[in-house]
């Protein structure tokens, strides 16, 4: 089995030299080029076995033979038929695209690569052409004239290459006159690929870990408590306050769930320290869970069923522990899933109460059914009611801009709450250009399971548009902090910033809050959470 070679990442100057010329050959006649550095490794046999997914085997995308199962073509076509009957979105999106091209230059992968198959319209056409050939009269009779084409192994490989090169960010959908959402097409395309055992390692691995151990990183219970203990040590060093969080505690009012990315590694852990400090200061009666220790959902990048299987744990754990409601941490896809799917999959959450902040008394009417509140909603409410003592000058060494996560903006509309917190916690806040934020925000280029290392070139291409907007505010205002509310952002953006911009660090919103948070009985802080000197406190130590 040929392991796809891990290639050296080209210099920014080479990647930014983007050729937007269209190929001389029609796209149906232009073969897919599996260029190392642009695709992720194939899913491992053991992970497919763990998840009970079809066709577990040793394989590599670099191989000629992908070891497809017997009858794969029928499996795929049956899979399309089944999904057409299950999803109106799929049917409509296959039928009504007029190929006007409004979506073309809206995709960050197209902007960063110039590859025409990264235009959402054409990426959808990869699947639409097969749909036309086998499921429409015009395609059956007219074939290619009607835009139809045979389903071959090469077509399947092309799907794999491009559907695992879409971050399901939905930016195209904002601009489409019919709201055609390439994320929907990609989701279904990936489901179809999974029917014959085609996934990527960086999705199947975390999904399998999450299924068995409760979180993507595969942290076992004692590792979770251990990591959080270490964070509490750091917080004690910083503030003199000892925090003793509880785990899997029955009788807590609130269950707190965040993506496991916050539990391990820089800079996620600083955001996590922010949660700990905030909840401690409030005296919140809450608990962590080691079983439901993941808010994010890599199942969502596999199939709806898989997403549901992983998401199940959140309500199950809330029920087992007997909490009243749930707070969720900073994460992108987590909130798309929680907002648009969770209650439908695993509800009704009628064993929980409508969330009510014990500190301010605010009832979160907008979470009346799911009983799950986003932490920025919770915190913004606290600040509005003057329940937190904040000293924003402690963040004066930071010039902050805010990156809207794709899923919290386009799948939810969570735009003002994080800004409100950042503005309360920081004196220097600068927006990126209007066409690159809020619902028009650009993806980090590594979402939906693409945050691997072997596809670094594609990630840097995908994040080019985001980075460029950051670079703009860096040059104009001296911005040195890119704040966000997404664990994948925290994992992916540092590499992106280093590559394209330089001198910009990535922060979770609650890290900025915790920097500014004046805690009861704390000692004078001389550094921020990262150990950087606070302004005016240099050399105090």
């Amino acid at each position, binding site marked *: 089995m040929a392991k796809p070679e891990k290639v050296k990442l080209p210099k920014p100057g080479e990647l*930014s030299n*983007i050729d*937007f010329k*269209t190929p001389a050959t029609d*796209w149906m006649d232009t073969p897919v080029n599996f260029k190392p550095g642009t695709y992720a490794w194939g899913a491992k046999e053991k992970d497919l076995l763990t998840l009970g997914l079809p066709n577990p085997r040793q394989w590599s995308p670099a191989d000629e033979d992908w070891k497809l199962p017997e009858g794969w073509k029928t499996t795929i076509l049956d899979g399309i038929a089944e999904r*057409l*009957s*299950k*999803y*109106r*979105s799929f*049917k*409509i999106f296959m*039928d*009504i695209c007029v*190929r*006007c*091209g*409004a979506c*073309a*230059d809206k995709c960050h992968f197209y*902007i960063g690569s110039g590859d025409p198959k990264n235009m959402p319209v054409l990426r959808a056409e990869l699947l639409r052409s097969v749909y036309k050939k086998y499921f429409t009269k*015009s395609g059956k009779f007219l074939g290619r*004239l009607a*835009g139809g084409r045979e389903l071959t192994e090469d077509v399947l490989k092309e799907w794999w290459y491009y559907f695992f090169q879409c971050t399901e960010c939905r930016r195209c*959908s*904002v601009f489409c*006159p*019919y*709201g055609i*959402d390439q994320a929907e097409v990609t989701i279904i395309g990936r489901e179809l690929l999974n029917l014959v055992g085609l996934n990527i390692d960086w999705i199947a691995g975390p999904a399998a870990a999450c299924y068995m*151990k409760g979180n993507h990183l595969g942290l*076992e*219970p*004692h590792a979770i408590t251990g990591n959080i203990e270490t964070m509490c040590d750091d917080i004690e060093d910083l503030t003199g306050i000892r925090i003793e969080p509880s*785990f899997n505690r029955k009788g807590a009012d609130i269950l707190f769930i965040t993506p496991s990315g916050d539990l391990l590694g820089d800079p996620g852990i600083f955001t996590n320290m922010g949660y700990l400090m905030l909840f401690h200061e409030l005296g919140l009666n809450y608990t962590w869970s080691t*079983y439901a220790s993941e808010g994010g959902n890599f199942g969502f990048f596999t199939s709806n069923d898989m997403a549901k*299987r992983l998401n199940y*744990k959140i309500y*199950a*754990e809330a029920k*087992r522990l007997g909490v009243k409601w749930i707070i969720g941490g900073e994460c992108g896809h987590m909130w798309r899933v929680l907002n648009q799917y969770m*209650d*439908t*999959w695993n*509800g009704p959450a009628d064993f929980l109460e409508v969330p009510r902040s014990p500190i301010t008394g605010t009832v979160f*009417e907008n979470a009346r059914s799911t009983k799950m509140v986003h932490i920025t*909603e919770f915190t*913004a409410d606290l600040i509005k009611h003057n329940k937190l003592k904040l000293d924003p000058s402690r963040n004066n060494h930071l010039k902050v801009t805010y990156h809207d996560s794709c899923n919290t*903006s*386009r*799948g939810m*509309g969570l735009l*003002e709450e994080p800004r*409100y917190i950042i503005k309360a916690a920081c004196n220097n806040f600068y927006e990126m250009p209007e066409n690159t934020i809020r*619902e028009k925000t650009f993806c980090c280029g590594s979402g939906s399971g693409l945050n691997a290392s072997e596809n670094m070139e594609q990630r840097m291409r995908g994040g*080019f548009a985001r980075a*460029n907007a950051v*670079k*703009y505010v860096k040059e104009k205002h001296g911005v040195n902090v890119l704040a966000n509310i997404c664990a994948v952002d925290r994992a992916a953006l540092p590499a992106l910033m280093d590559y394209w911009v330089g001198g910009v660090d990535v922060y979770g919103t609650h890290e900025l809050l915790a920097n500014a948070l004046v805690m009861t009985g704390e000692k004078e802080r001389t550094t921020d959470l990262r150990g950087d000197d606070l302004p005016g406190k240099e050399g105090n130590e």
Partner: protein
Amino acid sequence: MKVLFSFLTVIVLVLVAAVGSVLNLKFAFGIIIPYLAFVMFVGGFVCRVIKWGRSPVPYRIPTTCGQQKTLPWIKQDKIENPTSALGVIARMAMEILFFRSLFRNLKTEVSEGPNGPKISYGSAKWLWIGSLVFHWSFLIIVIRHLRFFLEPVPGFVRIADALDGMLQIGLPPIYLTDLFFLLAVTFLLVRRFVIPQVRYISLPADFFPLFMIMSIAISGILMRYFYKVDIIAVKELAIGLAQLHPVLPAGIGDIFYVHIFLISVLFAYFPLSKLMHMGGIFLSPTRNMMNNSRIVRHINPWNHAVEVHTYAQYEDEFREKMKKAGIPVEKE
């Protein structure tokens, strides 16, 4: 090749109608084919919509383009991120009547700046203007044509007719929409040729309707302003068709048969093609749903049970480690 094929198909259709008319197959071209086309259009349209409607919308998946409903002091964008039926209606109306999403369109350009590459986003309203003019002209032209089928002519048709023809240069008055329509359809066609990306994604199925619509417009204009046909006879035929008592008056010029044949073909083709975006836009789940899935539970009709990894299984595997770490367990 794609273009040529579409173009030639339309030419062939024009010739078929012309030859048919010359060979005096007027009964077929004036009555049978229009009826057939009408049945195919209505039947096909209804079938297609029913076919779409038969698939459920299992999840609530609106694309949100504004602030969500949240804390009372944060202003919700009630139209772009609706939680009420009224909001959805307003959102859809903006979309259908004014092409709201297309209005947002931007042009993205990568250029070389002093400190490396620079991406800029310019306003790009041409496609929006072009398609708005195209669709509105089309609608007004269709309304105007009702005067052939209805007697007495309803007020709104007269008004549309009068407004459209207010630019009175000679006789008959020149319809503004005829000009706008032809300009817009030409624009939509030209951009498919000249923008490389759009040319690359275009299929024969994109060129064909444009050529068809263009030829319909041209034949109509020729018929009205240049090779004038007997308008009284046309109305007689149209009313006959509408009242299901078709008559075939003599003396309508051949070009009329070309016009009505092309329209018939377009009507019959409509439900089989991308032109169904007309019906589909109403059903697009990313636009026509409220973003209230945290407030009200949305039901998936096929929501089925899935295999899960339960807490008990988890604890069985990790019990010793949990106990050691001081985490409470269910079973000692």
